[in-house]
C-alpha cells in the first residue's frame, strides 16, 4: 500500500508518503496557505513526485485539518439559527451560569459576548418531551415550526440547529422539524441534537449542536472542494479526515458531525507517538509534543487513547460534547517568554513571543527573552541547530534580552537566568504530566516518554530523570509525527445514548436492544465507508457512577454474552477499580449506569515501516561539533563538554553516551549527563539512564 498523510498546522503543512512495497518514506513540508486546500494540493503533488509516484498510485489519503478549530478560534462561523422548546430560548446564552473567572468584573464570557447563535435567530416552538420515558406532554406545533422556518429563511441562515429538551429519550419532534426545514429551507444544513449529542445535560448538548451549525457549512465546503480538487488532480484514493476521538472518518462521515473535527489537530501527533513506540515494543506511553507556543501532553496506558469526560471537552470556552482524546495543552514552548513581574516574581510562559517577532535571537525585532534564547545561552541549541543552519540567529541578542529582562531585575548571572528559564518551563511540563498521570492513578515510572515536535527532545531527558520515567523515545521524524499518526489510525465512529438505571435493577432486554441499535448504526456507517465486515470491530463502553454522584466515569463494558447478572457485576467491578484509580477511593454504594457507547472501529491494515540500516555501533561518523553545555545535575548547574551529532548520519545499533546533543533538520534531542542513547532498528532513538 501507498499511504499519504497530510497534516495542516498553523505555519507548515506536513506531508508524508509511506510506500510499503518499495520500503521508502518521503517527507515534504510546505507553507500553510490562506485557503489550506491550496497548500494541501500543492504539497500533495510535490510529495507524490518526490516519492517517484503518480497521483493514482496513492491508495490511502489521510488528512488532519484545523479548519473547524480555526473557525471557532477566529469566530468566523456560519450564520446559524436555532429552533428550540418554547420557554427555553436562552439555554445557549445562560449556559451553566458559571463565569469563566472567579475574581473579575471585566472578563469576557465567550458564549454571551460572541454567541454561536444570536438571540434573534434563536426561535422557540411549542412542544415538550418528558423524562423518564420520553412521553410527549405537548405535541409539536407544526404551524409554529413552519413559521419559525420561514423566519429563519428570511434571515438567510446557512444552518439550523434543532435542540429540544429530552430529545435523547424521544427524537420524534426533532425529526419532524427536520422534515419541515427541508421543505422550507432546502439546501440548508440541519443538525439535530438527538443525532449530535443524544445524552442528558441540555446546555452541553445544545452547544455541541450549535457548534455543528457554526462550523458545518464552511468545513463541509472545504472538504468537498478539496475532494474535488484531488480528484481532478488524479488522486483516486478517498479523502479521510482525522477526528478529535483519534480516528479517521470519511468525508461523508465527517460532514454529518462536523463538531467531531474540533481539536483534532494534536491527536494525530499522539497517535503517531504511540505507533512509533509500539514499533519498538513499548505500550505504556506519555507523549510530549512541544512546538513554538504550546506543549501537548498525552498519557496512554497500554497504548490506548483515553477519552475525556464529556463535561471537560471545550473549545475556546464553548462546550462540545464530543468524543475527544485525553490530551492536555499548556502554554509552554520555545517561544514562551521569561519575565519578572513588578513584585519580583519570575515567570516563564504562558505568554509567548509567537511566530512574530519570535525569540530575540531570531533578529525579527523581538527584544524579550524566550525559552529558545535560554537554550542558546546554555548551549543546548547552537546557531547551526536552526533548520540545519539555513536560518540565521544571533546569540548576542538572546544574551542581551536575558540580561535586561531577567538578570537585572532578579540580580542573577546570565547562566542562572538561562538555566532557570529552562528549568521553570521544564517544570510546567512535569506538572502537566503529573496532572495526567500521577493524579489519574498512573505511575510514570512504568511509562515511556515519547518526545515529539521541534522541541520535545530538548526537554524530555530532564523530565524523565526528574520523574523517574525509565526511558525517552524519539521517533525518526519527530517534527512530522502528526502526519505519521494519520497513517496509523483506524476508521472510528462513536455512538452513544443515555440509559439511566441502577446496575442491579437493569432492564436487560433494553440494554441489549440499545447496544444492538448503537452497533447497527456504527456498522452501517463503516459499511457505507467501504469497510469489510471482517475488519469491523464494535467495542462497548458504559458510563457509570455511584448512586447520587453526578460525574460518570467511562469503563469498558463486558461482553453481552456473559448474561445479565455477570454483565452487571463485572461492569460494577470495573467501575469500582476505575473510581479508585482516579480518585484514590472506592465506595460501597450502588453503581448506576448513565450512558451506553459503541465505538465502531474499521480496522485498517497495519502500517509497515522500513528498517534503518545497521551501522558499526560507533556514532563517530555523525559527530559534527563539541562545545560546553550547562546542565542541571542533582540540583547543581554544571558545564559539561558535549558532543553534537547529526541524526541523519546515525545508523541502527549506534550508541551515543551522554552528555550529547543530536540534531536533525527540524528538531533537537538532548541526552543529559548520566544517560545514553541508542538507535534501534526502526530508527527510534532510545534514551535511558546509564
Amino acid at each position, binding site marked *: 500500500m501507498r499511504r499519504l498523510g497530510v497534516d495542516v498546522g498553523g505555519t507548515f503543512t506536513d506531508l508524508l508518503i509511506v510506500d510499503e512495497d518499495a520500503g521508502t518514506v518521503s517527507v515534504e513540508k510546505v507553507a500553510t496557505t490562506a485557503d489550506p486546500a491550496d497548500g494541501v494540493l500543492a504539497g500533495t503533488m510535490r510529495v507524490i513526485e518526490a516519492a517517484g509516484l503518480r497521483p493514482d498510485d496513492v491508495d490511502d489519503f489521510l488528512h488532519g485539518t484545523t479548519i473547524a478549530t480555526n473557525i471557532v478560534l477566529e469566530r468566523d462561523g456560519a450564520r446559524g439559527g436555532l429552533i428550540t422548546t418554547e420557554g427555553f430560548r436562552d439555554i445557549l446564552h445562560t449556559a*451553566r451560569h458559571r463565569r469563566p473567572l472567579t475574581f473579575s468584573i471585566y472578563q469576557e464570557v465567550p458564549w454571551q459576548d460572541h454567541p454561536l447563535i444570536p438571540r434573534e435567530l434563536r426561535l422557540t416552538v411549542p412542544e415538550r418531551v418528558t423524562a423518564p420515558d420520553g412521553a410527549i406532554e405537548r405535541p409539536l406545533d407544526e404551524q409554529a415550526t413552519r413559521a419559525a422556518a420561514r423566519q429563519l429563511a428570511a434571515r438567510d441562515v446557512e444552518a439550523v440547529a434543532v435542540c429540544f429538551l429530552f430529545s435523547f429519550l424521544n427524537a420524534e419532534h426533532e425529526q419532524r422539524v427536520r422534515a419541515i426545514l427541508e421543505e422550507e429551507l432546502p439546501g440548508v444544513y440541519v443538525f439535530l441534537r438527538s443525532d449530535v449529542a443524544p445524552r442528558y445535560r441540555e446546555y452541553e448538548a445544545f452547544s455541541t449542536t450549535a457548534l455543528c451549525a457554526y462550523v458545518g457549512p464552511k468545513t463541509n465546503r472545504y472538504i468537498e472542494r478539496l475532494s474535488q480538487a484531488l480528484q481532478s488532480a488524479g488522486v483516486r484514493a478517498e479523502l479521510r479526515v482525522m477526528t478529535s476521538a483519534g480516528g479517521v472518518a470519511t468525508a461523508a462521515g465527517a460532514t454529518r458531525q462536523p463538531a467531531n473535527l474540533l481539536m483534532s489537530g494534536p491527536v494525530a501527533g499522539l497517535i503517531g507517538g504511540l505507533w512509533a513506540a509500539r514499533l519498538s515494543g513499548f505500550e505504556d506511553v506519555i507523549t510530549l509534543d512541544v512546538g513554538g507556543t504550546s506543549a501537548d501532553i498525552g498519557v496512554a496506558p497500554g497504548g490506548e487513547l483515553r477519552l475525556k469526560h464529556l463535561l471537560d471537552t471545550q473549545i475556546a470556552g464553548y462546550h462540545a460534547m464530543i468524543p475527544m482524546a485525553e490530551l492536555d495543552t499548556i502554554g509552554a514552548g520555545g517561544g514562551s517568554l521569561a519575565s519578572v513581574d513588578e513584585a519580583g516574581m519570575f515567570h516563564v510562559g504562558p505568554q509567548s513571543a509567537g511566530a512574530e517577532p519570535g525569540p530575540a535571537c531570531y533578529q525579527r525585532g523581538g527584544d524579550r527573552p524566550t525559552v529558545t534564547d535560554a537554550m542558546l545561552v546554555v548551549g543546548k541549541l547552537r546557531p547551526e541547530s536552526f533548520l540545519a543552519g539555513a536560518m540565521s540567529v544571533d546569540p548576542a541578542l538572546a544574551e542581551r534580552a536575558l540580561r535586561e529582562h531577567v538578570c537585572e531585575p532578579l540580580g542573577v548571572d546570565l547562566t542562572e537566568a538561562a538555566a532557570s528559564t529552562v528549568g521553570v518551563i521544564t517544570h510546567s511540563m512535569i506538572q502537566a504530566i503529573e496532572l495526567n498521570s500521577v493524579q489519574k492513578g498512573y505511575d510514570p515510572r512504568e511509562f515511556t516518554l515519547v518526545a515529539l515536535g521541534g522541541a520535545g527532545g530538548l526537554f524530555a531527558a530532564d523530565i524523565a530523570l526528574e520523574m523517574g520515567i525509565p526511558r525517552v523515545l524519539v521517533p525518526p521524524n519527530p517534527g512530522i509525527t502528526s502526519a505519521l499518526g494519520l497513517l496509523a489510525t483506524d476508521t472510528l465512529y462513536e455512538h452513544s445514548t443515555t440509559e439511566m438505571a441502577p446496575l442491579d435493577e437493569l432492564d436487560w432486554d433494553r440494554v441489549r436492544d440499545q447496544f444492538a441499535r448503537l452497533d447497527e448504526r456504527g456498522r452501517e456507517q463503516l459499511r457505507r465507508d467501504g469497510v469489510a465486515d471482517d475488519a469491523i470491530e464494535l467495542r462497548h463502553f458504559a458510563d457509570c457512577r455511584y448512586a447520587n454522584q453526578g460525574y460518570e466515569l467511562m469503563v469498558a463494558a463486558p461482553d453481552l454474552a456473559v448474561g445479565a447478572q455477570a454483565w452487571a457485576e463485572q461492569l460494577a467491578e470495573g467501575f469500582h477499580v476505575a473510581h479508585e484509580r482516579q480518585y484514590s477511593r472506592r465506595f460501597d454504594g450502588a453503581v448506576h449506569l448513565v450512558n451506553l457507547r459503541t465505538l465502531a472501529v474499521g480496522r485498517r491494515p497495519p502500517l509497515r515501516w522500513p528498517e534503518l540500516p545497521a551501522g558499526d555501533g560507533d556514532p563517530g561518523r555523525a559527530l559534527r561539533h563539541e562545545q560546553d553545555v550547562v546542565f542541571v545535575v542533582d540540583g547543581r548547574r554544571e558545564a559539561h563538554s558535549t558532543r553534537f551529532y547529526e541524526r541523519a548520519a546515525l545508523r541502527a545499533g549506534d550508541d551515543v553516551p551522554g552528555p550529547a546533543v543530536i540534531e536533525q533538520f527540524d528538531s533537537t534531542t538532548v541526552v543529559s549527563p548520566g544517560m545514553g542513547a541508542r538507535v534501534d532498528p526502526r530508527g527510534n532513538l532510545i534514551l535511558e539512564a546509564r
Partner: protein
Amino acid sequence: MSETETVRPTLDPMTLRVLGGAFGAIAKEMAQVIFRTAFFQIIREAEDLGAGLYTHDGQEIAESETTAMHCGSIGAYLRGIVEVWGGDIEDGDVFLHNDPLHGASHIADVCIAVPIFWEGRLIAWAADTAHLADLGAASAGLCTDAFDYFADGRNYRALKIETGGQRNQELVRHIFDNVRTPDVNRGDIEALYTASQLGARRFGALLDKYGADVVMAAAHAWMDHCEQLLRREIEKVPDGDYEAPVQWMDDDARNRDHPLNINVKVVKRGSDVTIDLTGSHPEVETAVNAPLEGSTKIAAYFIVRTIFLDQATHAAYIPNNEGMFRPVHVEAPEGSLFNPRFPRATYARFCACQIAADSVLLALADALPQQVCAGTGAEVHVIAFSGIAPGSRAYWVYVQVNESSWGGRYGKDGMDSIGCLMENIRNNPIEEEELSFPVRVERYELRDEGPAPGRWRGGLGVIRATRSLGEGWVTSEAERQFDPPKGLFGGHNGRTAKTEVRRADGSVLELPSKFTSFKLMPGDVIEFRTACGGGYGDPLERDPEAVARDARDKLVTVEGARADYGVVLDPRTLALDREATDRARAAARQPTVTPSGSTP
C-alpha cells in the same frame, strides 16, 4: 508584613516558581476530587465548595479558586479548630467542623481538615468545605427564619471524627442519624475526607522532597508576593473615605415590611483598605446575620481583590492566598448584622454579604470608574425543594440556584444571569432535575422585560418557573424584591426580583424573597425572576447599533429604544434611522429639565 517573620532560607527563583505551581495544583486537584465524587447536586453540579492548603495557624497557602466564599473562609475554620483543641492536635486526627461561633462561614458549609505534621510538629493543614444538603435545621435544605443558633442546624464544633487514624463510628452514626438526607451527607463527607487526605499526602510529598524549611519559605514568599501586588494597586487610589449609598435587604424573613439597611464606607489609607459597616442594621432574630470571621471578612477580601487585581486585566499568574487578605480590614460593631453575637442564627447570611460587596463597588465608583461596574443583582435565588418519597418515606431535598446578573461596565454591557460576586456556581441541568426529582421546568430564559438602560446596559436576570408534580415544600433564600441594583453615572437602576406562585386552581400569589417551608401542591407552579443589574453611563451615549441589536433580540421595544436611548427604529424592520436618532438625542439633551443625576 506577616506575623511569622522568622529566618527563612533564601530560595532561588526557579524553586519558588515550581513550588508555587505545585501548591496551586494540589488545591485544584482536591477540589476536583470533591465535585467529581460528591453526592449532593449543589456540590457536584454547582461546585459550591472550596479546598486548599494552610499554614499551622490558618494562613492560606493556596486555594482551589472555586466558590470564593468557601476558599477564603477555610483559614477561619482552622483557627476555630485550634481555638477549641489548643495543643491537643495529633498526627492521624481528622476534624469535622461547621460552627460559626468558631470561624465557620455558616452551618451548612462543612469542613474536613487534616493536620500535616513534620518532625512531630504541626506545620500545615489540608482542608476543604462544601455546602451540605441538610443540617437537621428547622426546615429542610435551607433555613431563612431560624430563631437562634440551635434552630440553625446541627453543630459540629471541631469534632475529631478520626483519632490516630481510627474513625469514631458511633459519633459518625449520630451525625447522620440527625439529618434529613443521611446518604447524601455521608457521600459528601467522604468526598471531602478523600480530598483532604489526598491534599495532605501531596503536600507531604513536597515536604519530603524539598524539606519543610524550603516549602514553608516558598509558601510565605508567595503570600508576601500577592500582598505586595495588591498593596501596589491599592496605593494608586488617593487616601479618603468613600461612602456607598445605603442599600436595603427586603426583610429579615419574618417581619415583612421592615427592610434592613446596609451601610458601607470604604476607608483607604496608604496601602490598606478598611470596609466599615458601622451603621448597618443590628443583628436580627432570624438567620440572615453574617458571621464576622467566616463570612463578612471573606466578602471584603473577595471584592477588594476583584476590583484591584481583576484576573482579566492582570495578565500574570496571580494566585489567591493569605497575602490578598492582609491589606483588607473590616469594621463591624458587635451585635450588628455583620458581627452577630451568640445565640443568633446565620444560616441565610449570603445575600447580606453580597449586598455589602456590591456597596463596596458603588463606594469606589468615582475613584475607580474603569475598575468597577454598576450595581449588581448582589443576590442569588437559592431555592430548596423538598418532599417525602412515597413508599420509603425518606426525605428528598433538591436545591435550585438561580443567578442574578451584573451591572454595566466601562466599555462593556453587564454580564447576564451568571454567577454574581462571591457566588459562581453552576446550575443544575433541567434534564438532571426532571430525571431525579418530581418537578417539571416550564420556563427558563432571560428576563425580556428590558435591561437597565445605560451607555453600557445592565445585565439580565433569569426567569425560572418550576411545576411541582407532587406534594412538597419550598424554601427560598433571595433578595432584591424591594431595592433595585443601582445605576452609575447616569445609567438607570436595574430591575427588582419577583416571586410568584400560580396555583393549579388558577389563583396567583405573590411571595416575598425569603420564606420557609411553603407548601406546594401537585400542579402548582413557582416562578422566580432574579434581579437585573444597573446601567452604566448615559443611555443617550449608547451605540445606537447596540440598541437596534437589543431590539432585534426582543429585549428592547421600539418605544423603549426611543424613550430610554433616544434611538429611532423602524417599527417594522427594526432598522436604525440614524438621522432621526441624532435629532431625538439632540432634543433629549436640551436642558429643559435639570438632570437629576451627576455628570462624570
